[in-house]
């Protein structure tokens, strides 16, 4: 923390190094100082009672993707995340890459960022003045940019644990397994008790803007296709060498509808 605050020029925090190291190798980043935080924290994931009667899954920032995919607490407390990280990179990336590093890197195609939005996660940011909690919805500021101060680092990610009856789904389109997502969608939803229709849903999308985005809850309809069409209409995805903007918008609609159906089916079980 002291190094981060006192280094004149640019200091970068090195977590798993699966994004920052390629950036260094490609000379996309050239910090004056690299601070390796890997030895700093070996805490495992934990589950504790939350304020609203539910439970909260606490994931230390250095939790590796492989642990997210395999740890029993994560699989039970946030099955969405455990499933989504299977789409992140390759075996080596998942062995080293961390949840805190991924969120701080703020890639607009991030599966983990998408899940953080859909689950209503919060991150604990530690700075020279102590800790503060930032909701995921207020964390992302643009392409590879967050609202964190330069002297702040993420220490924990807090995720409201999945409740019985809640549905979830993750869908991603990429040209090849392990590639960056062209579009990814994460859904967490509740069904209405009286008729089993979708009552409320958090729908987060990656690959459709300069950051991962959470769809406006007011757009959620009981009909998955209607919801998906409404959300797609609000998007204006950038086109690039991987896919055009129009294709991304269409993918967003198709994948959202698919994810809503799957999440509804899971919730009804």
């Amino acid at each position: 923390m002291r190094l981060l605050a006192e280094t004149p020029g640019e200091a970068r925090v090195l977590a798993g190094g699966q994004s920052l190291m390629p950036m260094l190798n490609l000379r996309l980043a050239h910090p004056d100082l690299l601070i390796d935080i890997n030895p700093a924290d070996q805490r495992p994931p934990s589950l504790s009672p939350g304020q609203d009667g539910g439970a909260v899954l606490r994931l230390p920032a250095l939790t590796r993707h492989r642990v997210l995919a395999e740890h029993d607490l994560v699989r039970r407390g946030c099955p969405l995340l455990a499933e989504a990280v299977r789409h992140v990179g390759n075996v080596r990336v998942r062995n080293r890459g961390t949840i805190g590093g991924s969120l701080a890197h703020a890639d607009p195609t991030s599966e983990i960022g998408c899940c953080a939005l859909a689950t209503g996660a919060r991150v604990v940011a530690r700075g020279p003045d102590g800790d503060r909690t930032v909701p995921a919805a207020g964390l992302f500021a643009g392409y590879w940019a967050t609202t964190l101060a330069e002297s702040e680092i993420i220490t924990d990610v807090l995720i409201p644990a999945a409740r019985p009856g809640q549905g979830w789904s993750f869908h991603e389109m990429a040209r090849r397994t392990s590639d960056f997502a062209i579009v990814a969608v994460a859904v967490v939803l509740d069904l209405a008790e009286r008729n089993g229709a979708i009552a409320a849903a958090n729908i987060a999308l990656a690959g459709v803007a300069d950051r991962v985005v959470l769809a406006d809850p007011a757009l959620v309809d009981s009909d998955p296709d209607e919801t998906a069409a409404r959300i797609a209409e609000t998007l204006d995805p950038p086109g690039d060498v991987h896919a055009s903007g129009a294709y991304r918008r269409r993918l967003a609609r198709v994948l959202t509808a698919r994810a809503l159906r799957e999440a509804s089916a899971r919730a009804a079980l």
Partner: protein
Amino acid sequence: MNRRQITLTVNSRDHEVWIAPSDTLLDVLHDGLGLADVRYGCGEGVCGTCTVLLDGEPASGCLTLAVQAAGRQVTTLRGLVGPGGELHPLQECFLRRGAAQCGFCTPGMVLTALDLVRRSVSQGQASPTRDEIRYALVGNLCRCTGYTKILDAVEEYAGRAAEAAPGEARP
């Protein structure tokens, strides 16, 4: 650059090496220690030719700083070869199945596949399916074989390892 001396444990042998803080593990293993079985491919962690096992887990040598490997067990492909030069059973499978052509990707393929099989054996799972092998090897690119023979080789080895009791399977 303020060079410093660290001890790297590679294939169960300690090496005192002078490194710069910015040296990657790949730099030190390949250029410093002359280990030609750790190879520069893409420099982005995508191709898998610089794969090493770091405390038994596959990691990209190009995305790991050498200082980060100090105090940990680094295994490269030649760490699997027996003292008399005997090939590892998985290497034998690669040979028998014709799973290497130019051989550039082979060390990374073997180490990654070995990790997959070790894990499923230690977790008492059935032999990994072809799809599971494919998923595990997605980060190891091969431009020669078309992958089919690599999958055949790993499948054969996995089948044998699953048959043997976990204690008997050579790690």
